[in-house]
């Protein structure tokens, strides 16, 4: 069997090295040439009692989401892992500690919970680790060695990744972890493989492309760097912090500047300032931070200043659930703020999309002189995928509409009304480009004006210039997948939920349901015509999203007047493929009955 689709869950307590083990696993598998999607769940607390879960899906074919049922569960702490046993499919494996030190009360050991159809592998993780390293700290690495032996995972890749992970520490640390891995590998030789989990050879990568594995936030950083980001201002907030952390390392190398400000209001103010000065400028935050930024965002719209705001959504409102995923800031991103403050809002659906949208956001901001919001979510920000990048830079370095040579004495009209509603843009220091900028409504020169006629014309300008964004090059603002022409059920999805939607669509097709899925990347301005065309082909439309209100469904039905079926979930976890599929089946069946 050549095709591989293997999903492993590692579950433990904060401090067990659960996330680290998942990280090594996914990197090693990616290095060996497999496609990887991975997502970690971790507690808001730093250490000691919270549950950590690392899920890694390893495939040879392209997939778009994690599976609901995993093939292997590794427990580093039964008190947390027991509740995940049901996620393992029949004839999959459950690996657990079978020589714990502490006395356990009845039912607190994994053996009481492994389902009869699953295969238990009790492993003395701690003892194996202590024998190999004189410490039990690397139990998480022992289980990786065990997995490697049981399923034929690439040992050399693991050795490399482990060495790489600990290269900044004393050499003894890396050596000790390699010993732990090898000890786990050796321990597995005493086990007869009884599950039916298999690993085929890796897939091949096309020449002329680089395969890398990164998170959504990592891809955002790479997109920013490749697009020539010049300035970044930010204030830490989960799950956006890693964008700033990575940029803080990388931007100085490229001669760019990053500043951690005292709060989110300062961050957006400085970003708008830098954008005004001509720098490709960005900030990154989450829902609570965006709530603080929307006032200044209005200034960016009114003053027509290019800037980019990355927003990684988490459970809300208020502080909400900082380490859980949600898609409930669509309304805030699209409508937040005072007045008619339309801006561009993009929502990538996968890690590669994060890269592309991040870079394209600078082009769009510059070209249409407006703030651009990139809506991510925790699931997408933290999810790892193997991504194949072209070796060529795909981003335009300068998309600004230049000011033509001014006649002597001619006043520069920063907000000139043009055919495409985009004004030539001068930045401070440009000869002859002196102008006024204000948050007040203004005339073409930028001087304050509260005339009703001017406000009407300028409002139209600020809105209509964005129509051009719908045709911006090399960016899928909206894309249909699956069956062409009339279908029984169409799935309309955005952000990270699209991956699950696509898998559900393919599963529905396999069941004989005519089904299509459309991803909506540009949420503002909304590609109404494309969506309307899609809806016209669908007898039923399902909109799955991770918010309570059905914010995309509201947005689309509000503009198109078409009733839509909603699948709204706010569990803090990604949408399940099976949940979507179940709804698709029900809708298809309903249509058939009708």
């Amino acid at each position, binding site marked *: 069997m050549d095709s591989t689709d293997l999903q492993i869950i590692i579950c433990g307590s904060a401090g067990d090295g659960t996330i680290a083990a998942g990280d090594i696993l996914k990197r090693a598998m990616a290095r060996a040439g497999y496609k990887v999607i991975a997502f970690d769940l971790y507690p808001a607390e730093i250490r000691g009692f919270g549950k950590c879960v690392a899920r890694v899906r390893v495939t040879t074919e392209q997939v778009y989401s994690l599976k609901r049922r995993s093939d292997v569960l590794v427990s580093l702490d039964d008190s947390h892992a027991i509740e995940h046993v049901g996620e393992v499919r029949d004839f999959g494996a459950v690996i657990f500690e079978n020589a714990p*030190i*502490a006395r*356990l009360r009845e039912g607190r*050991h994994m053996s*009481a919970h492994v389902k*009869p*159809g699953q295969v238990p*592998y*009790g492993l003395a993780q701690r003892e194996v680790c202590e024998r190999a390293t004189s410490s039990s700290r690397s139990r998480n690495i022992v289980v990786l060695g065990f997995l490697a032996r049981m399923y034929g995972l690439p040992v050399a890749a693991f050795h490399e990744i482990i060495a790489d992970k600990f290269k900044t520490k004393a050499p003894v640390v890396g050596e000790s972890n390699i010993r732990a891995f090898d000890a786990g590998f050796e321990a597995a030789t005493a086990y007869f493989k*009884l599950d039916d989990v298999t690993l085929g050879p890796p897939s091949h990568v096309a020449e002329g492309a680089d395969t890398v594995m990164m998170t959504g936030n990592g891809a955002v950083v790479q997109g920013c760097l490749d697009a020539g980001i010049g300035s970044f201002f930010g204030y830490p907030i989960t799950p956006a912090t890693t964008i700033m952390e990575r940029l803080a390392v990388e931007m100085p190398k490229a001669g760019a500047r990053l500043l951690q400000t005292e709060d989110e209001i300062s961050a957006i103010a400085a970003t708008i300032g830098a954008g005004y000065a001509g720098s490709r400028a960005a900030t990154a935050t989450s829902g609570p931070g965006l709530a603080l930024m929307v006032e200044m965002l209005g200034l960016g719209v009114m003053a027509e200043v290019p800037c980019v705001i990355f927003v990684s959504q988490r459970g809300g409102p208020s502080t909400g659930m900082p380490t859980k995923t949600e898609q409930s800031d669509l309304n805030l991103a699209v409508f937040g703020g005072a007045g008619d403050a339309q801006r561009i809002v993009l929502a990538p659906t996968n890690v590669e999309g994060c890269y592309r949208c991040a870079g394209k956001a600078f082009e769009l901001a510059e070209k249409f002189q407006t703030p651009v919001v990139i809506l991510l979510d925790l699931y997408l920000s933290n999810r790892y995928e193997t991504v194949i990048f072209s070796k060529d830079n795909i981003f335009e370095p300068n998309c600004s509409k230049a000011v033509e040579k001014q006649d002597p004495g001619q006043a520069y009209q920063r907000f000139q009304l043009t055919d495409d509603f985009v004004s030539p843009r001068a930045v401070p220091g440009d000869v002859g480009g002196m102008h006024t900028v204000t948050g007040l409504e203004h005339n073409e020169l930028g001087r304050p004006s509260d005339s009703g006629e001017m406000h009407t014309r300028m409002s139209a300008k600020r809105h209509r210039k964005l129509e051009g964004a719908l045709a911006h090059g090399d960016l899928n603002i909206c894309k249909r997948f699956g069956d062409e022409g009339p279908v029984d059920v169409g799935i309309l999805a955005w952000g990270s939920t699209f991956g699950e939607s696509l898998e559900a669509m393919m599963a529905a097709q396999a069941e004989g349901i005519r089904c299509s899925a459309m991803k909506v990347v540009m949420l503002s301005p909304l590609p109404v015509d494309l969506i309307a065309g899609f809806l016209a082909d669908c007898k039923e439309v399902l909109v799955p999203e991770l918010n309570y209100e059905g914010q995309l469904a509201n947005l689309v039905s509000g503009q198109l007047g078409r009733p839509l079926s909603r699948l709204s979930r706010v569990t803090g976890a990604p949408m399940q493929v099976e949940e979507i599929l179940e709804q698709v089946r029900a809708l298809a069946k309903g249509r058939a009955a009708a």
Partner: protein
Amino acid sequence: MAKGTHHVIIGIGIAGNRAAEILRERDPDCRITMITMSRLPFYNRYDLPKVFRGVRDWREILVDPPAHYDKSHITLRRDSRVTNVDGQRGTLTFAHNEEIGFDRVVVCTGGSGYLPEDLTDYRHLMNGFATFESAMTVYELLPEGGRVVMLGGDMIGLDLARTLLETGYRVTLVVNDYTFWPHRVAADQRGKYLEALERLGIEVHEGAKLERVKEGPKGMPARCLVFEDGSEVFGDVVMPFCGLVPSVEFMLSSGVDIERGLLVNPQLRTTNERIWAAGDVCQIWSAEENAYRFYYGWNNVRAMGEVAARNMTGEEEPFVSIGDEDLYVDKSGHINSPFWQHD
């Protein structure tokens, strides 16, 4: 029966599984926990030779599908070793440091293959045949048409030998005191049965005492047996079949009487009123013989599981051995045993 009585069955072989069936039948509300060191649910050990007939997916030898346990509300704990049973407190302890309570327990752990002391030095050069895993290991080690050397040749081994011969492998039997175990064969009858084995195609090696087992030289089969008379026998796999030793180590501090197996009265109760035993692990009092004795074979073991479960739920029935226990040569000249008879 009090609602929610917790019955624990240690061992999920033929006796344990039958006990679970009867317990559920007689006490629908009780809680049943089955414990095994195996990683697999209950499979018929008598089906293990089928590995050589192409049945190499353990799912095909399960007696019940995995869903059976959920349907019967049985908690199945696999890969779990019991280290102590405390009949006074009504608790048992696992090697993984967990303690669970019980109202009644029946020990059905059977026996493990016995290895005579003079063979223990060569344990690493031999293969057992007690589990699916060990059967698969032997299958993987054996080349096509390869030879298995059986030391002893108890009835479990001879059952395997029949399958091996029928599937194109070769078998050499090194006769010792355990040949034909558990049957006691009189000296004057021995030759008759060995001849029957030879008619099956088994090469019988009798006489000289085994001196040692060693790895075969390069280019030869993987194992070489050297006998005191200097003769050598080569084989790809060496398998000891010298009977069973009751698996009772974990019961040593339980306070119940143990001789070789757990001593039980005819109702299969041990000397602790909360603990019963069934199958190859127990020695049952025989008033007729004025001694404790073992009863072997699928039918007896299954009946013991049933009797123990009935008595755990209020009956006081004695165990009665089922059928003739003697080895015989049938009309076609083949050796046969009630030990091999099973559903």
